[in-house]
């Protein structure tokens, strides 16, 4: 059986508060609620010969309940269109569900079927969009050990449902064949991803190709996490979460790319900070220790004095005293400025002596 064939049959949604509108091409039900944005209706698909749906709204705002009954004689299944939708059917045939399309849409839908020749069709688009959203529909065929989902984008609702177009059918067929749809089904979870469309820029998708590699926000973030190093591997979670945004504020593709570029820059800055810290370490050691600071000042000063003494004798040392003192003074000044700049305080010699006394 080719699961995609089930879409040939019309399917109706009816019930209190619902208006079933079988699509002219068949296979698509549409809910028209006054409060429902016209382009964001949930969709259900099925075979009229096997399954019929009754529907009712609940008193709770934002929660829609569908009651499924089918001709296979199984118990009705109640489906709550809450953030997580769980559909359970028994027996062979077809199980189907619709993605919730409330504004608080959560991306996880769990579908469970048992029996052979099962097929889960999940269709729906996302939340009411502040920005243009890509519409995605998911078709999911089960196999004993593997699972898969196909997303068909830009279905053009409320136009002709894409699943009924020849090209979409070809895609569905290929997927069904690949997954071996004629297998007993298992429980599985489909993650529905809603992605904002990237608004094409004046220069086209500049971010897209660098030597044939797609520089998506995710891959940029992966690069950034690798650049940040093992010590900061936890930023991976943080940055991936950043890209996902908040429930009421998803990032557009453009914003994601900008953020991901920022992650790369941030990772480079982390590394520069680390390198600077390494470079300052010996300097800090000298600044912190009075003995080393004194050596830092005295050794070059004494060396200069020795050179003068060697070349010009004692009188030369006296005549060059000003220069020698300038060297020492400059180095001492450097130590003081360095301690201030690095906020380093040398150990107190009195305290050290007191500690050494029994």
């Amino acid at each position: 059986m080719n699961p995609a064939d089930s879409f040939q049959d019309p399917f109706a949604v009816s019930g209190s508060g619902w208006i079933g509108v079988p699509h002219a091409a068949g296979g698509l039900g549409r809910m028209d609620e006054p409060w429902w944005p016209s382009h964001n209706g949930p969709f259900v698909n099925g075979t009229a010969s096997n399954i019929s749906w009754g529907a009712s709204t609940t008193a709770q705002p934002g929660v829609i309940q569908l009651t499924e009954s089918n001709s296979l004689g199984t118990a009705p299944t109640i489906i709550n269109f809450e953030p997580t939708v769980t559909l359970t059917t028994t027996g062979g045939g077809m199980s189907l569900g619709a993605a919730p399309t409330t504004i608080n849409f959560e991306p996880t839908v769990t579908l469970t079927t048992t029996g052979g020749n099962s097929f889960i069709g999940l269709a729906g688009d996302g939340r009411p969009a502040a920005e243009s959203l890509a519409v995605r529909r998911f078709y999911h065929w089960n196999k004993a050990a593997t699972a898969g989902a196909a997303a068909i984008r830009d279905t053009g609702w409320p136009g002709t449902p894409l699943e009924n177009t020849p090209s979409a059918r070809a895609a569905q067929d290929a997927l069904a064949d690949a997954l071996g749809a004629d297998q007993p089904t298992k429980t599985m979870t489909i993650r529905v991803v809603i992605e904002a469309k990237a608004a094409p820029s004046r220069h086209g998708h500049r971010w897209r190709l660098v030597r044939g590699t797609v520089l998506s926000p995710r891959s940029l973030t992966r690069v950034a996490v690798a650049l940040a190093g093992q010590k900061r591997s936890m930023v991976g979670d943080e940055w991936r979460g950043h890209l996902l945004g908040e429930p009421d504020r998803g990032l557009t593709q453009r914003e994601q790319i900008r953020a991901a570029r920022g992650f790369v820059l941030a990772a480079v800055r982390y590394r520069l900070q680390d390198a600077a810290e390494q470079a300052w370490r010996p300097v800090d050691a000298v600044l912190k220790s009075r003995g080393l600071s004194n050596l830092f000042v005295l050794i070059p000063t004494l060396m200069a004095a020795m050179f003068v003494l060697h070349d010009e004798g004692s009188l030369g040392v006296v005549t060059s005293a000003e220069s020698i003192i300038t060297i020492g003074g400059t180095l001492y000044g450097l130590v003081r400025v360095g301690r201030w700049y690095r906020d380093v305080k040398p150990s107190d010699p009195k305290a050290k002596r007191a500690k050494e006394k029994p």
Partner: protein
Amino acid sequence: MSAPKIRLTAVIMDILDVLTNSPVDDPPWGLRLCDQTTYGTSTVYPALDRLLKVGWIEDRWEEPPPEDRPRRRYYYITSAGRAAYQDEIAARAARRTAWTARTLPTGGTA
């Protein structure tokens, strides 16, 4: 050695401002800090890293980790950070007052 010195740049001050004024039960995380300070990720995250190193802020990971998305890293200001921020605010106000007193005419009797 004392904690590393940190320069109180506008970015650092803005981040501390957001953290100071955030409710404890709804702490900010990276995205929110970027939104509220209007700085990009390349500026905010390194600044947060510096603040963590000097101990002016601390981080806590979201518990329990959610299943449907990566866990968030929340940031909180510490008492040291709050004191440093308030000291800097007071110092800036004092400088402003002194500057105003120097530059503006004090007036006199007619």
